[in-house]
Structure formats: C-alpha cells, structure tokens
C-alpha cells in the first residue's frame, strides 16, 4: 500500500486531540480517563452503539438482560475504582463476596471460599478433615505467591538487554520480590511455576470435587486443560490479579458489567474526554513513519498526536495499521500470537428460579461450578484439541437475577454461564454444531438442576466465533492473546511492543493483549496511560 497522504483539509475534523483511543472497552476507557485526568485532550472511538466492549449488558431475550461476555468483577484494583471515583459515577454492587459452590452430580455440593471449604459429602471422600487443613495451608501459600507476583501486574514490563537503569531496576525488583519469599517459598514457587495444575492439586488434596473446583480457575478462559504445562502459571496469574485488586472477592455490579463500563465512560467524560460511539476505525493513518490519527469507516479522518489502540494486537497491527509499516520479523511474531478462544457463553431466560440439588438459596447468589473432578475437566479439554466441543463441558454458572432482579421481568430469572470447551474452529463449523452444543450445555446443567429445561423460554449461545464478531476480538479470546508464560510480561503481546509502545512512533497499545492481560481488570489501560505520560514507575 502506498504511503497515506494527508486528506483535504475540509474532510478533517476541526478538533485536534492529544490522544485517540481506539475501542471503548474497559481498558480503553480506563486509559482515556487516566489521560483526561492528567489534562490531556482525549477522544475515545467505539465501533458499537454502546461503550464497554466485552464488559457490557445486553438484552438477549425480550425483557431479559445479561452481562453479555464477562459476568463477574473481581480483578479490578480497588485503587483504580477509587481513583476514578467509579462509585460516584454510578457503579453499584448487587453482590460482593459471592461464594463458589462446586456441584456434585446427585450429591452434596462443596462450598469454597477464601476462608475455607465446607459442606461436601464425607461418604464420597470429601472434604475429609485432611483436605480442610490442606486447603488452609495451600491458600496461605498461594496467597504469599500471589502477593509476591502482584506488584508486577501494575508495572510496565522492563526490556531485556538494555543498559537503561529503569529496566535493570525493574528486573532487580522482580528478583527481590521472589527472593524475599524466603528459601522454602522461593523454591516452591520455582518448582510449581511451570507445572500443571493437575499434578499440583493431586499433591495437596484428596477430594475430586475440591480438586475440580480449584483446577477450574486455572483453566478458565484459557486453552489449557488441567494437565497442560503452565496451568499453574495461569492460576497464579488469576490469584495475583485478585490480590492486586485488594483481595476483592467475586462481585456483581448492579445492572451487569455494562454499568461498570458506563461508570468508566462517565468518569472519562467528567475528566474532559470525548467518547464517540458508532465510530468504527478503518485505518490507523501514518505520515512520515509516525501514526498521525485514524480514518473511520465513514471516511472521516481524525488527527491526533498519539493513537492508543485498545483493539487486540493482531487486529491493531495486521488490519488497522497494515504490515507495510512494520518490520517483517515483528509482523511474523504478531501473526503467530495464539489468539483463538476456547470459551463459550450461554444465556438462558427462565420462567422461574431454578433449583439445584442440595444447593442453598444463599449459594444461588454465588457462582456454581460444574467441574466435578480434574479428570472431568481434562476429558472436556481433550475434545477441543481435535476441533470438537466437549461432550461433557465444564461450566461456571451465575444467576444474576438472584442478586439483581431488575435484569429480568418480575419473578423470572437468567442464567449466565461460561462454558468450556468450545473451539474457535469447530470441525463441522458452528452453523452446524451450535444447536447440538447448546443442547449439551442445557442437559449438563439439568443434571444438577432437574426440571430446568421446562422453564427455559429463550437461550443464546455465544461461541468464540460469535465473540470475535460481536466484540471485535480476533479469535474471540477473552485475553485477546493466550495468557501463557511465553506470552506474558516482557513477551506480551510480543517483544518489541511489550511496553505498550509499538515500533511505530505515536502508536501505543492499551488492551488485554498487553501486560498484564484480560479479565475485567483495567490494569493494562492504566499502565499504558502511565507509559504514554512518561509516568511509568
């Protein structure tokens, strides 16, 4: 493609911005709000009619609303929520400290919280007294590891092989964080860091149900089964993020995740940022080897000093920018990013409150897990390797209407379920397989909630292919790019763009594809804003 030239002056917007943020997802909004609060002129461009990206609330059946992609909030740092005054911009919580209940087919479930495990069925082998003690020791140690790793998340990753002191300092600090764990913990962290979660949990626990519940969090939203190498790393990541969030327990914003996004947008606008919806960016424009602004699908061109992309790295570099502005080796690294999602979302509109066998009313306001053992999880994962969906999927269920009745007509309810595993590329194609997978999901849940099927008035299944299309995420992966050791920290998304700054002057990244990754956290957006402001520590 030829160099893009300056468009005629008449076509240009009169306003000139310091920053254009492409994409009004939560990271883009956090980034924009942080920049606007620093006194910069910021424009957020969102392709959809509403901000929020994958943190959105949508009506999926007449009168039934649901958090359409992410459905829980537990990773966003408390100081970020406070710093942007999100609660004064409309963020409320319908529930906090939601418990996790591990469902057992036809038996007594197990309740898992930070404090301990309770319930269960001693006859079925859990939670034997030993497991309760082991759980306490395990969570304490994992919490120490999370505490050591948590400070990494809020920092711009250092570059390797430079002589710059900030880089050396950051590496030293990382080494110190691990060293100060002490000899025993440090050795244990290094031992388990590259392990798989199956082996780790088998070392600690007897109860298959407890193992399944803890293993589920390690593989949630990833391309891992519990026996995949590196699945302890993803668990540590999740725990570190939760630690950095101030130990914030699982929470449900009133009105769904969309209200978080509205609060973020309100905070950005209050600080002086401009937010435009229905403004899909077609191209990032480049002049004199520097990003100069964007061109919208409408043809309108907007100029800015700096462009910050909340869009996933592959779309940013390969589609919006164009590889003709990038080195071939860098382009190859970007194109090799693993971006295919393996997680589906299921929404069910229900005529009445479902009953789950032996589950208390209180537990219905929390999350319910269908992952009765590590073997169950691994079997569910096996299918995905061959382009098949799980015949017995692992599922995280929430009933948002229990805590927030406004989401459905009076007396009616919604199930919002995260389902694994659903490969982005299904062998027979999703047009072909969608109905069957939806039926399997309902049958699986019904095994734990007899009679559920009769109360379903409407159902919606979002496969990774749907998530790609609806939320404009290449591959439909929650984290934009797989969270794994080789795509983390100094390597996220790829070396050469891991400090939010891209090889192209004036172009930055701020999305989940950057360190520290996705989940509704906002840290990537805040780190990126600090980096462009030169305030990165």
């Amino acid at each position: 493609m030829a160099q893009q030239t300056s468009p005629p002056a008449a076509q240009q917007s009169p306003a000139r911005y310091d920053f254009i943020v492409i994409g009004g997802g939560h990271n883009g909004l956090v980034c924009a709000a942080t920049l606007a609060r620093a006194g910069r002129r910021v424009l957020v461009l969102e392709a959809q009619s509403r901000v929020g990206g994958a943190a959105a609330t949508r009506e999926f059946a007449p009168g039934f609303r649901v958090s359409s992609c992410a459905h829980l909030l537990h990773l966003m740092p408390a100081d970020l929520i406070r710093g942007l005054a999100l609660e004064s911009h409309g963020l409320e919580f319908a529930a906090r400290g939601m418990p996790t209940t591990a469902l057992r087919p036809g038996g007594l479930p197990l309740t898992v919280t930070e404090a301990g495990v309770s319930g269960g069925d001693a006859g079925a082998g859990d939670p034997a007294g030993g497991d309760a003690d082991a759980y306490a020791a395990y969570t304490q140690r994992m919490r120490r590891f999370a505490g050591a790793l948590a400070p990494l998340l809020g920092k711009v990753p250092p570059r390797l092989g430079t002589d710059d002191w900030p880089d050396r300092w950051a590496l030293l600090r990382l080494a110190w964080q691990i060293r100060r764990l002490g000899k025993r913990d440090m050795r244990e962290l290094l031992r388990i860091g590259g392990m798989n979660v199956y082996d780790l949990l088998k070392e600690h626990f007897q109860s298959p149900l407890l193992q399944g519940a803890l293993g589920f969090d390690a593989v949630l939203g990833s391309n891992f089964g519990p026996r995949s190498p590196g699945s302890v790393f993803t668990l540590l990541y999740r725990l570190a993020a939760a630690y950095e969030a101030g130990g914030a327990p699982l929470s449900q914003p009133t009105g769904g995740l969309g209200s978080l996004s509205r609060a973020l947008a309100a905070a950005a606008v209050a600080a002086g940022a401009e937010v435009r919806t229905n403004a899909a960016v077609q191209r990032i424009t480049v002049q004199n080897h520097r990003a100069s602004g964007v061109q919208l699908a409408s043809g309108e061109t907007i100029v800015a000093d700096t462009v910050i992309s909340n869009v996933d790295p592959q779309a940013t570099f390969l589609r919006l920018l164009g590889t003709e502005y990038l080195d071939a080796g860098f382009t190859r690294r970007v194109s090799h990013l693993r971006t295919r999602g393996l997680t589906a979302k299921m929404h069910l509109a229900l005529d009445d409150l479902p009953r789950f066998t032996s589950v208390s009313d209180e537990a219905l306001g929390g999350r319910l897990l269908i992952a009765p053992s590590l073997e169950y999880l691994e079997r569910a994962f096996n299918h995905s390797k061959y382009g098949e969906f799980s015949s017995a999927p692992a599922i995280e269920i929430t009933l948002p209407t229990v805590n927030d009745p406004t989401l459905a007509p009076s007396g009616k309810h919604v199930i919002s379920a995260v389902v694994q595993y659903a490969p982005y590329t299904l062998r027979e194609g999703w047009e072909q397989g969608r109905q069957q997978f939806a039926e399997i999901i309902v049958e699986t849940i019904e095994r734990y909630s007899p009679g559920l099927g009769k109360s379903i008035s409407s159902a919606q299944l979002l496969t990774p292919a749907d998530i790609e299309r609806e939320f404009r995420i290449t591959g439909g992966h929650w984290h934009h790019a797989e969270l794994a050791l080789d795509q983390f920290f100094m390597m996220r998304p790829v070396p050469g763009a891991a400090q939010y700054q891209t090889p192209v002057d004036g172009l930055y990244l701020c999305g989940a594809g950057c360190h520290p990754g996705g989940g509704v956290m906002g840290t990537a957006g805040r780190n990126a804003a600090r980096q462009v402001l030169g305030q990165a520590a």
Partner: protein
Amino acid sequence: MRNSDFVPMTVGADPIPRPTLVPGATPHYVQPLLKTPFHNRARALSQRDSFIPWAGYTTVDVFTNVEQEYFAIRNATTLYDLTPMVKYRIAGPSALSYLNRLITRDISKLKVGRVAYSAWCNDAGHLIDDGTVFRLGESEYRLCTAERQLDWLLSSAIGFDQLVIEEVTEQIAALAMQGPTSYAVLAAAGLVGVERLKPFEIGTFDLDGASLMVSRTGFTGDLGYELWMDPSHAERAWDVLMAAGYTRGIRAIGSSALNIARIEAGFLQPNVDFVSSAHTVLIGRDRSPLELGLEWLVDFDKPYFTGRRALVEERRCGPARRLVGLDIEGNKPAHNALLYSDRGGRKEVGSVTSATWSPTCKRNIALAIIDAPHFTTGNPVWADIYLNRELVWERRMVRARIVERPFFAPDRRKATPPGNY
C-alpha cells in the same frame, strides 16, 4: 528429493508407505547435487574435473586453468553457468508494495524492463542477502538471490494479499556472458538490436528460433550480459553462442576466475565478505548494509522497509565497522590477514575477507572489514600475511592503504552502444 525418483511400495501389509527406487534412477543420497541444463556441455569441456557444489547444484570451479579463464573475462568473452542462482517469481497487484517493504531501495522507481541491485535486512537492519530485482512486467518481478530464503519472503508477505511468490530456479536456465567481446558475439549470434540495451536493461531476443531474455548485468564489472532461457533450449543456446564466439576467443569459465574479477569490481560474495543474518550464530557477526558500504542502496526517503528503524539509528550513531578496499604492498595476496593500526601489531583493527593479486590492475588488492574509526579512506593499516614457502611458514607485516572500490571499472562496461571488439 524429486518425487519422480520414487514409487510407493505395495509389498506386504505395512501401513506406512515407504519409497522405493525406480529402476535406473540415481537416488538423491548417492548423488545429492543437481545438474544444470548445461552440465553435459560443461563436463565435456572440463579438463580438470574440478566441480564444486553451489546452491544444491554441481558447478565448475576451473575448466582449464584459472589464469586463462580470468584473462578471457577481461580480453575476450566468457560463458559462466548461472543456473544455480536462486530465482523467485514475485507477481500480483501488491508485488510492488511487497518488494518495497522487503528491500532497501525504492523499487517504485524501477521501470518495466529494468534491473536493480539491492539488499534486504532483518528487523535489526542486518543484511540477509543482496541480489537483483528484475521488473518483467507491470506487476511481475524476478528476485535473484545467492541463497534460498523462501521462509523470509513468505514471512514478509504477511498482510499482503493478491501476491504470488514462487521459486522458479529450476524453470530457468541462465548463463552469464561477460567480457569485452560479449556484445560482438551476441550480435554475431543474431540478436538484432542487442546494442541498444543499456546497463541494467532487459530485452527479449530470438536465438536460433527460441526466445532468449537478455539483461545487461553481471558480476565482473566489465561489459557483459546475463542470458535467461527455457532449460529445454539451454544446450542449443550454448552451442550457438560457442560457435558465434569462436573467432572472438569465447571460453567457458568456472567460479575461481570469476572470483578474481568480482574482487576487482569490488562486489561482495555472501559467506565470504559477510554472513547472512539468517545464518549467523555468534553475536556481532551480523553486518548491516551501512557497514558493508552499501549505504547507496538504502533509501531512507521511501516508504517503510524492514530494518529501517534500526538503520536510522545506526546512521545516527555511525557504523561500528566498514567494508573497504585495500591496496597492499608487495604481490602476496593477503588471504585471511588480520589488520593492525601499527606495524608492531599491537592494535588489531580488522581483517581481510577477500584477497587477490589483480592481474589487470597489477595491484595486490583485498576487501576488508575495519573497525571504526580506522576505516577512513587513505588511512594506512598493516596486514599480517602468512606465506607458505615450500612448507615453511613465513610471516610478513605489510603496509596497506584503504582505497575506494571498485579497483577496476573500465568505461566499456557502460558504453551504449557497446564497443564492437
């Protein structure tokens, strides 16, 4: 492995298909080198049986003796089998923008029917290879390279649609015809209008009833042409040219003679004067085009190309070393000599990459890599030359001077129409 050598075995119930030999075929592991379409002609003329591998083919190093062949380049005309040169076809609507992102020169300035010498780099601005780009049509190019690099070409193609990249090495037979009488021989062979070809221009002619593409290019720094043809026409073309050149001293040459001529012309040889950054293992062995004296190939004003960012930075800081020409006292070629800034050999500043006695210039010349800041033209350096004199090694510290390349550049190489020698 060529598929035609093998047929699947059908014996027994072995589920794994195993290759077995076609009766009479030479298996690739017995004779792994391919033969060019000129091989039978070369074999017939070879007095020394001196063949060397080149890019997977067996080619001639010396036919009769190096001096005879060298002097044919400078005084008559020569045929050199260029077929193993790796050739890629790059075509399609985005071929121009693709090539412009690949190479360091502004390819948009290359007109149809012209050839450009260029280089290409990795992200760090280190040279992967140099070669020539032929613009054969509006969106039809040929890239000629010393080594295979389809992987890099395909990586560079990410994000470019409507692009065809294919290796066509085996589909094209090529001969270099170099020397002062080369034009006269081509004219005698019936190539009407070949005198109009300017340096780096391409034309298509009829040779004995078959189409022959001729480019006025070469690796000798002399008047000369490169001839590109269908392999089926190769032997006939060879015979016609040999017959047409008989009275003008035509001679087949091998790589050794060519090597002397290319050093005189100041041209770089991969794996001799630099190692491709695709192959280097040791840190610091990569070379940038600025270090190799190829800055004239790097266009910083054109659209982005791979390595530009790194080269802008290198240009700002200045290259750490530089490839230069050396004029060395005495007549002993300074093969592999280490270079010092002082006669005592205390401060090492570089080393020789290519060296030869230049029979035409009557000078002892070399190409050398010299560290900053010692590479300035006119600067004296000392070459540590080792000589084996009847099995006794002697060491000479010889004064050398950094000089401009090329060492030999006769006007006849550029004259259009060329001289009818």
